[in-house]
Every structure is written in structure tokens, then in C-alpha cells.
């Protein structure tokens, strides 16, 4: 049973090398000398212009069918494109959720009308989504969601509050998880997903500033918000299954190992060409970790492409990946003396400071460390 977790070897497709070179050339042209403090924003960097430029290159919706504006490339090609973007700290945040989660959700469960309407806009880099899952009393325990959608003439009326909604203030739509019926014995029943236009009357978006004083999160309050019948996603009451299948894709991508990459690059720069032994050992250790994590993450991508759903393996990658991401700033500061300051002129200090203030979120967003380890333990047969 020692190999209860399966990490198949994976070979990148032959097209990957050319794609990688194209992405690097694009990044040089788009970003130029992109400051380390900006790179450290990783996938929370928000730029509609950049998203539209990516859309024009065919790097959003890469693996979707062409009839919905996609490009029918492989999941591994998408992986290569994505890891190049993240390693460069490119501002991919605007279309991020739509490309990674909302679009794939609609592809799997959406109606033909929904797919035809939303997917081409997402693919063009013009249409952004946010996710309305967490609530003030429903964080890790999604089944505790209380926001309620009640049937009315022609659709649904929604009341409740969603929280930690990244980019709700920039996005056009939200994928809302709401209660439409009783939870049942397993607590997983009675949840449904909807596409909500964020300009609908009765919907209020309030900023929640994060540790860095930045505005990414929001509280979204629904007061008698009308959602048309045609905006239910999938089946009424099938929300739990739809959401959990979505999470497996969210947990193992390159974004779970590269959030602190800007710090790592600046650490290598600050260490210089001939560091002392202590610095060399630490750099080597971090290298061994990130290289191995990348192979694990790629392996999960390969299995997803092969139609295997490696949810336990995805949990392993996210647990180890976020541990690593959080270690990077701690180790960096132990090697290179500095007093952290946001917006510093020094690249190392700027990247370190931004990442330090963002690091606590790494092991909370997308499933807390404790939840993930519970999933791993279940994979071991312990629960």
C-alpha cells in the first residue's frame, strides 16, 4: 500500500518547447523589466489589458473546445504556459478564476446557452468571474452555507452574505453556491450553483483589506437579488458534487508551488555567484524542494489529462507546496539581513515583504492545511 498515492511519470508533449519559448518572448515584450515587488503579487496581479493580450494569443481557455472560443490544446501545454506566467510573476489575476474554475464548471455542467454566452467572452480575456463559496459562518465547512435561493416567478431570489470573495469588485459575474433545499443526513444535499451578474440590484460589494493593506477580498451581501431561471448551473441540489469536483483542479496547479517564486529569484540574486556554505546549502535545499514539487504537480496534471481524478494526490501537492511557499520568505530572511518594508526600492526587500504579508493565506485559500491533511488521511484509509 506504500504507493497509496499515485504520481505517474509524465513527458511534456513535443509542442511544449515551442510554446514555452513563445510565452517567454511574450512576457519579455509585455512586462519588460517588471519590478520584483510587482512580481511578488503572483496570480493576484490584476490587469485586463494583460488578460486581453493573453486572450489574443490563445492562452486563456487553452484546453476548451474551439466552438466555445477555446483552443483544444492539452492540459500539459496549459501547464507549461501557466508555470511560465507564474514564474515571471505576470498579472494573470483578472481572468484567473474564470479560466481555472468557472469556465471548466460551465463546460461540465452548464447549459448550451450558458456555454455559448459566457465561454467565448472568457476566452477573449474580457469576462471575469469570482467565487461565492465562503460565508461568515462557513469557511472550511462549506456545507454550512446559509445563503438561500428561493424559487420565484421566472427564477430565484437570493438572500445572504458571501465573504473573502476575491476580485468581486472587478469581476463581471460570480459563481454562487446557495442553499435551495434541506441539507439531508450527509449535509451535502440542497446546495445549488448560480451565475450571478454582479450588477444586479440588491447586491452590495464591500471591500475587506488584507494584511498588506490591499483590496482583493470583498464581502458580498445579497438582499432579494433576482437570479433568472436560466442562470442555475447544473442540477438543483447538485451543488456539493459540482463544487467538490471543481476543487480537485484548484489544488495541484503550479500556482500552489510558485506563489513565493519572486522571493526565490531575488534570493539567488542577492546570494551572488559564490555564496558562503550556509547560503549555498539553503539554496540547494529550496531547489531540491521546488524541483520535486514541480514534478509532483506536473504528474497530477498529466493524470488529470488522462482522465484520472487524483484528488488525494492534489491534496498532497497543495499541502507540501504551500508549506514550501511559506518557508521561502522565512529562509530568505535568515540568509540575507534586511528589515522588511513594502514598496522598498530594493528588489529583494520588496519581494520578501509582500510575500511575507501574503504567506499566511497560502495554506488557507483553496482548502486549509488541516482540511487537506484530512483528505490525505482518508486516502490512507484512516477515516
Amino acid at each position, binding site marked *: 500500500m506504500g504507493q497509496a498515492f499515485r*504520481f505517474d511519470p509524465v513527458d511534456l508533449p513535443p509542442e511544449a518547447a515551442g510554446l514555452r519559448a513563445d510565452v517567454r518572448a511574450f512576457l519579455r515584450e509585455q512586462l519588460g523589466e517588471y519590478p520584483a515587488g510587482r512580481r511578488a503579487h503572483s496570480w493576484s496581479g490584476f490587469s485586463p489589458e494583460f488578460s486581453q493580450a493573453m486572450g489574443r494569443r490563445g492562452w486563456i481557455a487553452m484546453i476548451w473546445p474551439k466552438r466555445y472560443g477555446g483552443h483544444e490544446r492539452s492540459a500539459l501545454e496549459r501547464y507549461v504556459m501557466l508555470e511560465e506566467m507564474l514564474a515571471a510573476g505576470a498579472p494573470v489575476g483578472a481572468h484567473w478564476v474564470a479560466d481555472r474554475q468557472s469556465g471548466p464548471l460551465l463546460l461540465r455542467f452548464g447549459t448550451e446557452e450558458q456555454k455559448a454566452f459566457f465561454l467565448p467572452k472568457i476566452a477573449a480575456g474580457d469576462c471575469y468571474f469570482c467565487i461565492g463559496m465562503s460565508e461568515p459562518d462557513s469557511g472550511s465547512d462549506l456545507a454550512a452555507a446559509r445563503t438561500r435561493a428561493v424559487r420565484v416567478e421566472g427564477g430565484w431570489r437570493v438572500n445572504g452574505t458571501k465573504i473573502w470573495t476575491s476580485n468581486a469588485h472587478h469581476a463581471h459575474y460570480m459563481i454562487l453556491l446557495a442553499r435551495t433545499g434541506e441539507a439531508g443526513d450527509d449535509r451535502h444535499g440542497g446546495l445549488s450553483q448560480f451565475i450571478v451578474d454582479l450588477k444586479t440590484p440588491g447586491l452590495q460589494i464591500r471591500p475587506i483589506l488584507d494584511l498588506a493593506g490591499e483590496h482583493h477580498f470583498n464581502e458580498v451581501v445579497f438582499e432579494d437579488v433576482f437570479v433568472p431561471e436560466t442562470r442555475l448551473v447544473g442540477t438543483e441540489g447538485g451543488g456539493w458534487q459540482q463544487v467538490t469536483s471543481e476543487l480537485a483542479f484548484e489544488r495541484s496547479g503550479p500556482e500552489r508551488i510558485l506563489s513565493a517564486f519572486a522571493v526565490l529569484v531575488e534570493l539567488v540574486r542577492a546570494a551572488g*555567484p559564490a555564496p558562503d556554505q550556509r547560503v549555498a546549502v539553503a539554496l540547494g535545499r529550496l531547489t531540491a524542494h521546488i524541483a520535486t514539487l*514541480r514534478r509532483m504537480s506536473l504528474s497530477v496534471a498529466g493524470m488529470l489529462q488522462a482522465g484520472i481524478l487524483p484528488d488525494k494526490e492534489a491534496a498532497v501537492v497543495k499541502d507540501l507546496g504551500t508549506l514550501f511557499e511559506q518557508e521561502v520568505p522565512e529562509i530568505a530572511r535568515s540568509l540575507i539581513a534586511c528589515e522588511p518594508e513594502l514598496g522598498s526600492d530594493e528588489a529583494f526587500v520588496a519581494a520578501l515583504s509582500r510575500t511575507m504579508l501574503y504567506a499566511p493565506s497560502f495554506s488557507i485559500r483553496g482548502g486549509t492545511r488541516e482540511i487537506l*491533511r484530512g483528505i490525505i488521511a482518508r486516502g490512507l484509509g484512516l477515516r
Partner: protein
Amino acid sequence: MSEMSENHDLLRHSLDRLFTQQVNRPVLEAAEAGTFPTALWSALEEAGLTLPMVPAEQGGAGGTAFDALAIVRAAGSHAAPVPLPETMLAGWLLWACGLKIPAGPLSIAPVRPEENLTLSANAGGGFRLDGRVTRIPWGRDARALAVLATAPDGLKVVLVEPGGFALTPARNLAGEPRDTLTFTGLAVKPGQVAPAPAGVDGAALHLRGAVMRSAQMAGALERSLDFTVRYAGERSQFGRPIGRFQAVQQQLAIFAGQTAAAGRAVDAAFEALAAGGDIAFVGAIAKARVGEAAGQGAAIAHQVHGAMGFTREHALHYGTRRLWSWRDEFGAESYWQEALGRRIAAAGAEAFWPLLTGTAD
């Protein structure tokens, strides 16, 4: 790919059966007390598992690096007290330079990068071998040693047979022989010497030793995780199996993560061996990463086993004492981390990502 993995499933299955039959407590205890497990070794030789990568014409199995990985990993998993990786490495050295590969368990020297043997011309014809090497695995049991020695005209591979040198016995924490061999003018016939081929030197041998130990550790981690998960399901305290407690589950999840990372790092190293990739980079990553996983995994295995696992009677220690030994052999984590770090630093910040993705110029 699927045909290959099917063959490997078959190989893994037969390896598991062979080691389960041949490696048990009496064999392990006898090996630690100084009795070489000849029945186990014969079974391995008969099954053609000792020289997987040597062509059939030279007495090998004509297989791939992946066969070697499966064999060494299974040997590590079962704590097989035999020099399997060492025999594979000796076979590789001897085959690469065209020397004959003797039957039986083999070993290699030197195994530490700072040690060196010298070969010089003997007055009466032939050569003489001089020098002292330490920590030689199964030095006392090896039917022959494949030795790297420096001669005035370059590096040589020397086939050394037992006798004629002084041996001081020593052991690692798992009781595996790690002997000191002293050569004082040992007479070597010309037929036992060949120039080391290009790419075969002390560093290459040391690196391959590190990769082999990593594979053994990956196997030992997998098995120790199995033991520990099973024990957590069987041992009850406070009216329920300890594996039901979240505190224990979280520890086992960490153990599983470390084991998975170790397995992936080792796979990558053997992929590089098979495909002729950047083995210096990927091999160093494997030993550094697996060594770290070994320490964490062994600690959690013992914590979950409680006092039971601390006894000599419980089988857990056959794996954990090996993990604690193997992580320091052929270079500890810090050795390979430093090598990696120096390479990264010398290449510079802009070359870091290309190095990681194997797309450096």
C-alpha cells in the same frame, strides 16, 4: 508506456514475493550478527536481479534503469541485507570499461569523495594498488571489488579480489558492513586493470551511489508508512484506534506527503539515468530531498508506534535504522544541497527558472 508499466507491475510483484520469502527476522538478525544471507543472494542471482542494466552477453539482464529502480526500491522496502546496489554499480563500472564481471556479491571503492587509491607500476611487472578506503559496503563479503584508482596516466578501473589487503570491520546503524580496507602494494595483474571510460570517475560513481541509496530509502519510507498506518488502525487507546485521532491523522498525512515526494524525486533521477538527462542535477535533488523525507518519516513512524516501535522485537527498526544510515551515505543532504546551491548561485538569478525546467541554454 502501458506495456512497460504492466511489465513493471509484474516485476514488482515477483520482487515482493521473493523478498517476503527470503527476508525475515532470522535472516536479518543473522546478517547483523555477521552471517551473509547466501540463500537470499542465490535467489536474487537465479532470478537475474543482480545486474539489471548489464547486457545479457556480459551476464546481466539487459534491462533498463527502471528495472534497477524497481529492484533497489523493493530491496530497500524489505531491508534486504545484501549489496544489491553496490553489485549493480560494480557491474556498471566493470562493464563500462570492458572488464569481466565475476559472479556473486560485489562492492565498490572508494565511496567517499575525499578518499583516493593509487595504482602504479610494479617493479616486477603488473601494478600495485595503494591507499586506504573507509565505509566500504560489504567489504568483507564481496566476491570482488570494482575499484577506481589514480594512475600516472589517468584514472583506472581495477578488479580486486579478496585477500591481500587489510580489512577493519565496521557497521552502519543498521548493522550493515561498512569496512575499512587498506591496500599496501597489493599486486594487480594487467588483465584486472582498464582505463576508466569517459564520464566514469569518482564523482560519477559517488552520484550513482547517492541515487541508489535514494531509491532504497524511497522503498524503506513506503514500507515504514505502511507499517505505521496499519499500526494506527490496530492499536486502540481511549476506546478507539489511534488512527481515528485527528492529531495522529495529521502526522500520518505529513509522513505520506514526505513519502510521495521521496518517491517522485527518485523516479525523476532514474528517468534522467534512462534518458541521459542532467543526472548531476536530478541525482543531487533526489538524495537531498529523500534524505530529508527519511528523517521526518522515521521520526513520525516512531512517534505513532509509541513504545512498541522502540523495541528490538518490533520490525519497524529494520527500516528506520536503515533510513538513518542511508541518508548519510554517499553524501548527506547538506552535501548535495551545497552542490546544488553552488550550481544555482553560479548560474545566477535569471538562469534559475531555465535550470528548474530543464530549458537552460
